[in-house]
């Protein structure tokens, strides 16, 4: 493919056509903070933390998906960009527990984002769900990056065990009629845990260790759970899989 030349923060850059603005910036050492982007997932450009200002564009542009164009003039830290990134980070901190998201914490420092900016804000505090022997789900830490849903579905596993509940601010990750994971199509491949950026999904053993259990106790606890999983309360495969080929 032919090369395209554009300007990023005053520097001329030539990159192959089809390159995203984010990649083009990276190629000259300009770092753009991306939260939802992940190589293994179809990009949905939904965190909007990677936005940049492009001359002539009405609104800011998500650099993780927007492709370069000839003679484009890009600003990665204009006042508009800074305000959006800072406010997005502040709003995120007002909604969920970011204590196990070091990347986002670093961005908050870079953008002087105030975690207490929104007093009296309703947080998405929800109890941790411990319903299977493999992992726990602590959606009070979930930033709705969609990665787990995507890898469970057509980005990787084709299992379709999880999807969304609610809408808007009330959105959460959920299962069919809120069933516990063992009663869903989940095959416990752990892909979702692997892509979760905030510790919302965590291996059960790691979580039990954090709770102060020692190795033997952790092993005993997860074995107990495994046994419980085989008990007759479990749904049959037919009911579990219903409908999906």
């Amino acid at each position, binding site marked *: 493919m032919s090369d395209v030349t554009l300007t990023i923060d005053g520097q001329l850059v030539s990159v192959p056509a089809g390159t995203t603005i984010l990649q083009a910036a990276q190629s000259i050492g300009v770092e753009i903070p991306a939260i939802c982007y992940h190589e293994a997932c179809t990009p*949905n*450009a*939904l*965190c*909007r*933390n990677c*936005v940049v200002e492009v001359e002539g564009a009405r*609104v*800011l542009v*998500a650099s993780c*998906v927007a492709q370069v164009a000839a003679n484009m003039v890009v600003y990665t830290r204009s006042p*508009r960009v800074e*305000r*959006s990134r*800072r*406010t*997005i980070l502040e*709003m*995120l901190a*007002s*909604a969920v527990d970011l204590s196990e998201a070091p990347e986002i914490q670093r961005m908050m420092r870079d953008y002087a984002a105030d975690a207490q*900016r*929104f*007093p*009296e*804000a*309703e947080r998405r505090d929800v109890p941790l769900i411990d319903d299977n022997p493999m992992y726990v789900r602590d959606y009070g830490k979930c930033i*709705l990056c969609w990665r787990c849903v995507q890898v469970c*579905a057509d980005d990787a596993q084709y299992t*379709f*065990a*999880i*999807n*969304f*509940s*609610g*809408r*808007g*601010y*009330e*959105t959460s990750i*959920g*299962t*069919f*009629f*809120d*069933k516990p994971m063992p009663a*869903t*199509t989940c095959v416990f491949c752990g892909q979702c845990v692997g892509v979760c950026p905030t510790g919302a999904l965590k291996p059960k053993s790691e979580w039990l260790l954090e709770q102060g259990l020692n190795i033997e106790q952790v092993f005993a606890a997860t074995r107990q759970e495994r046994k419980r999983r085989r008990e007759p309360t479990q749904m049959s495969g037919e*009911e579990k899989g*219903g*409908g*999906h*080929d």
Partner: protein
Amino acid sequence: MSDYIGSDFDPVPLQGILAQLAPQGRAALLPALQAAQALYGYLPEPATVEIGRALKVPLADIHGVIEFYSLLYAQPKGKTVLHVCTDPACALRGGEQVLAAICQRLGVQPGETTPDREYTVERAPCLGLCDHAPAVLRGQEAIGAVDLQSVGDVLQGRGNHPVTACYGETNDLIAGCGKGRATTLTEYEARGGYAGLRRALSMSPAEVIAEVKASGLVGRGGAAFPTGVKWEGAAQAPGQPKYVVCNADESEPGTFKDRVLMEEDPHLVLEGLLIAGYAIGAAKGYLYVRGEYPAAYQALTVAVDEARRAGYIGEGVDILGSGYSIEIELRLGAGAYICGEETALFESIEGKRGFPRLKPPFPTTHGLFGKPTVINNVETLANIPRIVTQGAAVYRQLGTEKSPGVKLFCLSGDVVRPGLYEVPFGVSLRHLLFDLAGGVRQGRKLQAVLFGGAAGAFATPDQLDVEMSFEGLRAAGLPLGSGVVMALDETRDLRRILAGLAHFFAHESCGKCYPCQIGTQRQYEILRRVADGKALPGDAERLADVGWTMADASICGLGQTAASATLSALKLWPEIFEGKNEKL
């Protein structure tokens, strides 16, 4: 978890319906869920399992879809659902009090069902009955002008059936409206109806597109995109089949123009859609009607039947000997404002949650089912028959150079004669609001006009001479939007109105992108305390930061405009965002 007892569930009637829908696969998900809900009153788990099996949709996805749409119920509801509007036009006329009175009478809170399962009361977003505020949708039936005395009647199913008054200086789009019932095919043809389609079919598709381009018609759905250019893009795009879609999801608070056109003159809309289909070579057309518009859906159902019998619609039907044919399918929305956004609407037809897609690519090349698609607003399509029969030159005799033709405006709020107004582009706001609509009610003074809807901005009395055209309003920094003109008198507390608008957006955000998912919620929280006289120091800056971030960084038009009224008020009346509220 569902409280449905598995053994009570009779799958047989549903299975019959699913056998018919199965060939469509996932695209039939919403119709299947709606059919199941009509049978069982809600969506019991075993019914959704049947649906998943028949349409081959994963169960988690089905649950995700049910959760997205406010009119799909995973839990049992009352036999009658009362949707009580508390959005701006109704709030001005006591909508909150009506909601409270209904709840008190039934002994429930909003969102709850009476213990005898007779009624469920829901706080509803704008029902498109703003000229009959406050409004209630009782099951499938619209009731207007509800007051505290008539609450009992509303529960009994009695009440004022709203007929929208149509006024104006021209009679092009509303020729068949104002009579309180739908024009029949016979009446429509007697008025010269379907002559536009006849004429179009005698022209080449390229000639039809050229005529629409020459007319200068600009989309009326809010984005103001030139219609002819859009059609040309889809006509020239590679890929088959092509689709044409009528966006009849009208849900912008304050807007009711499309509802009136559909309820009273459905063939006009249909004729426009058929011409659009011919122009781009579409094999199939969809009409996606808002879920809260049962009367419009009914009128269009009848009209599509009539048109089908008359040979204007149908797969393989050689329309008027032209060799062209098109199938039309009606779809009913399920309670989600965001599904008016064109790409969210496609997702909804495809049986998914109504999440807007990233653009590019655009619908003209990658639209419904990933195919070239034209999507137009109801009012846009209603202009088409006239453009084709009379030609672009005659069409351009009305309106301004840059905004040709006529425009429908929805007047509501504190105005003497609320209703639907048709005027040529270019009249002044003063002419529309005072000369035609009689000015402000009860002899009060005008404080402001909410322009363009919830996603709009405020105009002040010193802007009354603004020219009502795309260019005139743009110069004044006002959005035309969907044609909303909501008058607010001097006594109104703008803080309360802003908090109401913010509630609407927080309720309707799809939740996909962070700026809008969290921003609409934070904006609502702040404006609620501002309205309660409990503003915190720094709230004006918080609102500005949240607002500009939503405007600049959101994925779609919902987030991009969710703060536009707030930002306009911050500029006009910065003092109201501070400290005590003396209007309390």
